[in-house]
């Protein structure tokens, strides 16, 4: 498996991606399937995804929530896992973890999300 390090600065993806280039688009597409219904935006557009790392054995996603009091975090994490299951090879395990540091800020929102929210 060819490994490649690609930072968000070099791509349109608003999170750090590390792994095979051929999996970058399918993984982003899968992550964009998970929508926060309260704001009608994907978790990628809200900027909740911090990093995706694909190794020989695992797809690791680090993401956050806008609030530490969010009771639907488990549901969103499970949705991320379920969507990834549909696109990544079955020999890779999926690990989705929640990170609170650094905290989410509106700076992480995509230009499209900001436009929809009236920025």
């Amino acid at each position, binding site marked *: 498996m060819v490994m490649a390090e690609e930072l968000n600065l070099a791509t349109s993806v608003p999170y750090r991606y590390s792994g095979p280039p051929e999996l970058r688009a399918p993984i982003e597409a899968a992550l964009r399937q998970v*929508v926060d219904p309260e704001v009608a935006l994907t978790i990628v557009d809200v900027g909740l995804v911090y990093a995706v790392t694909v190794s020989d054995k695992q797809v690791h996603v680090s993401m956050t929530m806008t609030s530490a009091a969010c009771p639907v975090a488990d549901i969103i994490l499970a949705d991320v896992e379920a969507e990834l299951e549909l696109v990544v090879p079955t020999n890779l395990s999926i690990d989705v973890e929640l990170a609170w540091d650094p905290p989410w800020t509106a700076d992480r929102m995509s230009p499209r999300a900001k436009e929809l929210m009236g920025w």
Partner: protein
Amino acid sequence: MQVVMHKPSHPGAPLLVVGLRAGFLMGVAALLVTGIVGGLLRAGVALPVPGDSIWPGQAVLGHAFLMICGFMGTVIGIERAVAVKLRFALGAPVASALAGLAMLAGEPSAAAWLAVVAATVFIAVNAVVVEHQRAPHTVLLLAGAAAWLVGNLLQALDSQPAAVIPWWFSFLVLTIAAERLEMTRLMRRRRGAPIALYGCLVTMLLGATAFAMSPVWGGVVYGVSLTLLAGWLMVFDIARRTVVATGLSRYMAICLLLGYCWLAVAGAAWVATSAGLPFRDAALHALGLGFIFSMMLGHAPVILPALARVKVRFGWFFYVPLILLHASLVVRLCLGAHAFDMLTLGAEGNALAIALFALTMTGAALASRVRHPSARHRRMDCVGGHQQESTRLLCRPRSPAELKAIAGTDAATEQK
């Protein structure tokens, strides 16, 4: 980077845990039902309740306690416990649910002190949330928990009973305001907006405090603060933007915006009641049903899956109980002030709307089960090599054409 591991819970929970969870949820549902029965009996609805049982009378006497401390306090407590994932956090909803049951059993003193325990634990839980994330909205959640404790202590000590209700409502209003403040972070904030919100909420707490000494002036201040808060929410909340989306997002926004209208009505009714006008029912139920229950109807399709571990499929039918709730509130609160039979009719409509919503949620959960079998099970089946043909197809990586189609989907306008 400091990371908190937070993996999704697996569906294969031990049978005992599933049973306890189901039993607890049924207890919470029982508190809601008995609270509603108490409210209906107060509104003059002739219900066939057992005459030799103590609970119907207790449900009438403890209607507000059952609805706010027993039901809503328990649901919010579960919600927060699910968020922080700490075992001690379950102490708050367990104590508040037991408080509701004690009230129904004719033990109001035990009920009141159990509610004090629930609020105390809930404060500790919210302190953990503030520790995780020091932000204005988490501090407001903590303030809401403190308001609940004040109301519960006043109830337990039987001191200044008139002020209990404003403090209980302050708990719910602060909790909702905190959640809305958090969502406004996604919008460009106008200068002074947070300060204006804090001004509304401090005024509300001043009104609740003053209510014990002077129900007239306390009620006026409390009512004015609620109306100002409704104006703030109308202007600054994201619902004004998400209402142009589709599906569940639009439904949630409509619930929010309707709720804000009723919050403004509630504020005016608190002022009018303080002036001696016959709008007490509007003061209590424009707030409790129009504002707070509307929030609950809006968020239940998102929150319930997190609490009960079931998914729901959203559809147009969610609007039926919502329309019924608000239409029956118009009948109850606009016509009921001068015609008791209209108040009774409106209250029946309110109860029917909540029952219909419960049915809607049940149907939506069943519909989701039929339409979306668990993806996790699909993968596990595939890994185990015993998959059916259909599941194997779902496990393979999608073709470039499929992925292109997915990436091109406008997720902002699609509900799964």
